[in-house]
């Protein structure tokens, strides 16, 4: 079954999501092993399309010889072990395991760190107690289909109310603030890789300069780009995936404007009045960067990293 047969028509995600049909058990139930596809049809299709285009192979971080090692250790998670939340202007997370277990129902993005090593759990717990959203929108708990729908329909993974998500309401801002998304929606697919990128990036001189800048309530540091290879090693780009809006008449500016027009048009009038936005998987993140964006911390007395996300190499 090809990707094209999974998208469009009654099986299209936009017509409603159905889990894969459950196959009845074989008569000899003890001998037969039945595999049940846990993903919805839309998620399966998005995963398939992403792998077909980008070659994403879901290997765990640390399994490749090209994964980052620190100068003093062959262990790829050494930067995470050394991570000090205070240096990122994040609070001390306390008992990370207890924090993650107590909240994973209402904060599903924490599930990604559940089975991780203690240092990774500690970093996720610290991030979740800060004001940033990198672990909510740009990490592996976000599925390929969620990421595709974010860039196409501005559906915010952080919005847990299905109706509000479908309406493009931001899940982290108060009221009915509309969610915004760049022309690509990207993620670091592996929690260990995500934690390593964040912990390593926080110690980079350019990020340190931003975090240590004198606080001004009306000012904030400009964003910073760091090569993915510096953060995650020569194979680091393999842990990044994304979706990019398709250009309209060869223009990405026109594509973004068209997406805005689609979202501003009532659903019942869309088919006849505006073109539906579409997206394709990002082919590669090799040569790409991780972007660190800064903002005011929740105490209002300093700056923190409010988001971090991978960005593919510029298309010129």
């Amino acid at each position, binding site marked *: 079954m090809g990707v094209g047969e999974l998208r469009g028509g009654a099986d299209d995600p936009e017509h409603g999501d159905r889990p894969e049909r459950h196959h009845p058990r074989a008569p000899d139930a003890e001998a037969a092993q039945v595999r049940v596809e846990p993903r919805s049809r839309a998620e399966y299709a998005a995963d398939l399309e992403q792998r077909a285009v980008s070659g994403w192979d879901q290997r765990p971080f640390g399994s490749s010889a090209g994964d980052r090692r620190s100068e003093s250790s062959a262990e790829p998670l050494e930067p995470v072990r050394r991570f000090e939340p205070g240096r990122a202007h994040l609070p001390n997370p306390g008992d990370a395991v207890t924090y993650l277990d107590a909240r994973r129902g209402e904060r599903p993005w924490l599930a990604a760190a559940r089975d991780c090593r203690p240092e990774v759990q500690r970093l996720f717990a610290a991030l979740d107690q800060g004001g940033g959203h990198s672990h909510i929108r740009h990490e592996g708990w976000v599925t390929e289909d969620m990421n595709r729908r974010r860039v196409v329909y501005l559906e915010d993974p952080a919005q847990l109310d299905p109706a509000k998500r479908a309406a493009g309401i*931001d899940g982290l*801002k108060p009221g009915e*603030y509309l969610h*915004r*998304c*760049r*022309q690509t929606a990207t993620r670091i697919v592996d929690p260990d890789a995500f934690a390593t990128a964040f912990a390593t990036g926080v110690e980079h001189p350019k990020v340190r300069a931003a975090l240590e800048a004198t606080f001004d*309530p*009306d*000012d*904030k*540091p*400009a*964003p*910073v*780009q760091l*090569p993915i290879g510096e953060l995650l090693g020569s194979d680091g780009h393999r842990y990044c995936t994304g979706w990019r809006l398709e250009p309209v008449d060869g223009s*990405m*500016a*026109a594509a*973004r*404007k068209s*997406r*805005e027009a689609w979202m501003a048009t009532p659903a019942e009038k869309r088919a006849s009045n505006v073109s539906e936005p579409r997206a394709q998987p990002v082919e590669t993140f090799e040569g790409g*960067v991780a*972007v660190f*964006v800064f*903002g*005011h911390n929740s105490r209002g007395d300093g700056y923190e990293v*409010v*988001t971090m996300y991978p960005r593919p190499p*510029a298309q*010129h």
Partner: protein
Amino acid sequence: MTGFYWERYPDGLFATLIGVAATYCSPDADADDYDRLKRLAKREDNQQMRVFKAELRRALADPSQLPAGELDEAVEYDDGSDEKFLRRLWHDLYGNEPIAGS
């Protein structure tokens, strides 16, 4: 070469304009950031914003001088063109003040 435009070309003609616009107007910006920029724009003692205003004036006078694709890539505005975005930005920050400076 990696890096945002203002990192690659710190002395570039519109480095401050593009850097400030990316920081406060892109989809990465916080809900409160645009209001922060409006307050910053009123601070006449802020050297960066004096340079920003001058570069914004220059860009509006002749948008063809803008480095190709850089503002679009940094800000990813929904206005459709560099000029439309910059005109909206001028109006939001400086109201009815004439674009042509004295």
